[in-house]
């Protein structure tokens, strides 16, 4: 099967927020360390008041030649994939949520890589995109495998913190809070924090600077 799998858990205000236990599908490898969010989603496309069109702009410049024609960038070559395979410090730089929004709307549901920039990883958590950190050798081996077998199944298991492909099981790490949030279907934190609004007001009132 493909796509996120799991139960729908009601959130504090009754809306269904799906739990995400695993993501199964095919892979798309994007190689390179320190790929910043300006590369993932160039600033000129941020001029919009919604995220609706962001899928069009993921890696926009890198997917095109100088003359504007689509080139052989992985996001052009591996359409339909949902597991992105990357390297070190992926998503560094600007905090723009447009970057993971763009990847998500292109089709990405999980990202396996060596490491992730913090704000990017937080944004992934907010959107229900799982990130799995694996060793350098494992990240490269996964990228090699996807390139050799673009149609092969890849499965990221959030509970087990593994990525499985071709009989291989690679152990990695999903940050604890993200893992809990995805498995319990509480990755949308607004509702749960809103239930503590009175306590937030108490903290507000107790701080020395809030009556300025």
């Amino acid at each position, binding site marked *: 099967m493909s796509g996120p799998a799991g139960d729908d858990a009601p959130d504090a*205000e009754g809306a269904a927020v799906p739990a995400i236990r695993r993501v199964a599908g095919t892979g798309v490898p994007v190689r*390179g*360390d*320190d790929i*910043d969010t*300006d*590369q993932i989603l*160039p*600033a*000129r496309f*941020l*001029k*919009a*008041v*919604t*995220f609706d069109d962001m899928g069009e702009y993921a890696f926009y*410049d890198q997917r095109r030649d100088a003359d504007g024609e689509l080139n052989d960038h992985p996001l052009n070559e591996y359409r339909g994939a949902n597991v992105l395979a990357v390297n*070190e*410090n992926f998503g*560094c*730089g*600007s*905090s*723009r*949520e447009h970057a*993971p929004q763009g990847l998500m709307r292109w089709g990405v549901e999980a990202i396996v890589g060596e*490491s*992730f*920039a*913090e*704000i990017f990883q*937080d*944004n992934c958590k*907010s*959107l229900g995109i799982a990130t799995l950190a694996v060793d350098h050798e494992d990240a490269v081996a996964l990228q090699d495998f996807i390139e050799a077998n673009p149609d092969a199944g890849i499965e990221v298991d959030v509970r087990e913190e593994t990525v499985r492909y071709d009989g291989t099981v690679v152990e990695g790490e999903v*940050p*604890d*809070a*993200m893992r*809990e*949030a995805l498995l*319990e279907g*509480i990755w949308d*934190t*607004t509702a*749960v*924090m*809103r239930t*503590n*609004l009175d*306590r*937030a*007001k108490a*903290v*507000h009132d107790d*701080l*020395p*600077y*809030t009556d*300025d």
Partner: protein
Amino acid sequence: MSEGTLYDKVWERHKVADLPNGQDQLFIGLHLVHEVTSPQAFGMLRERDMEVAFPDRTVATTDHIVPTTSEGRSRPLADERAEEMLTHLEQNTADAGIRFFGLDDERQGIAHVVGPELGFVQPGMTVVCGDSHTSTHGAFGAIGMGIGTSQIRDVFATGSIAADKKAVRRVEVGGELGDGVGAKDVILHVIRQLGVDGGVGHVYEYGGEAIRSLDMEGRLAVCNMSIEGGARAGYINPDETTYEYLRGREFAPSGDAFEERKEYWESIRSDADAEYDDVVEVDADDLAPQVTWGTNPEQVVGVDEAVPEPADTRDPEAAASAQAHTEVTPGETMEGHAVDVAFLGTCTNGRVADFREAARVLAGREVDDDVRALAVPGSGTVKRKLEAEGIDEVFEDAGFQWREAGCSMCLAMNDDALEGDEVCASSSNRNYVGRQGSTEGRTHLMSPAMVAAAAVEGAVTDVREFDTPDAVGTEVDE
């Protein structure tokens, strides 16, 4: 686990609750808002029929998309999408009762310039903004963190974010800074030592002789670029320099309230026996002015130091690709590397002290005929102060364009952009490929003084070789 640090103390004061996913719900004392990352969050609130919970702790400005020519700022803006974003922010802030510094307010400017200079940001606060350079506010001994738009929705709805406490790394910067060397050089040097991802999972506490000696503008520049080293937040313990900067600011407490507040500020300083997760030492003695040669901020050298061979860098493949993009030659220094554009401004170096420093270099000199030079004050307040001092004339006489406040060519969301493969000497914070609006453009990060020197010579130059007056313009007390 750290203990007794400013970070620990401020975190505890702002903790609201333990969340089911194991994170803390952290109260946000100041939420800075701008037009690019907020409209979607306001939209999410409307979808859920929620209101902004703490409009009194929220301040908005417009910075990313605004034109910086005075004629370009008449409404409606020529760029329809920019106009749409600005209109949304005006409407959203009016509906929610949020204070907004718009284009018709002379205090408008970059969020990270406006927040500090108007006295909104104070020691011991938690500060967030949908912008990674929110780390800037750590200069006051606040915890400043960049957040994404879903988290902005969280802050609007709950005054809080869900967050994990990070490890605290003490970054001890020793040594005395020489003439022509300043905060920008220090932070670029720190990032080179610790790497662009060295700070992931950490908060940086900067200290040591080289940090203590910096004025607030310098400290803001250092903390601003924490995120370029992977640290979401970086801070400096508050001291007399901090308090003196705050005294008299429009939205800071005054009189007895100021003295009373100071007790809180003093109380959240890291204890003398505080425990850190780790401590790193960085030597800034005899530091040369720094210039980036590549396409991330860690790819940097002293101006008199040879650009490294890719093999001698942390990531040889990235270095080779960066050098192909910037067309620099390993083994040679950056001195003499031709520039087409000089850009002065941004949330890193767009403050009064930054322009004064550059003006000392420009006084009596002219920008090279082949260089396009832009001076973009970080806010209307900065601009007016510099104009009162006559500093604008120094820039205009030298051949700089003197612009209105905004983010401008740092990320080129307005008309200020590199064209083709132009090479830019920039006082901004990111030299990523395409960052300044052209995928072929090249960015070399450096201090304001170094940008001014490069503008004059038409090439990267060691500013220490320039004779400069101690001060230019007339300092005017407000």
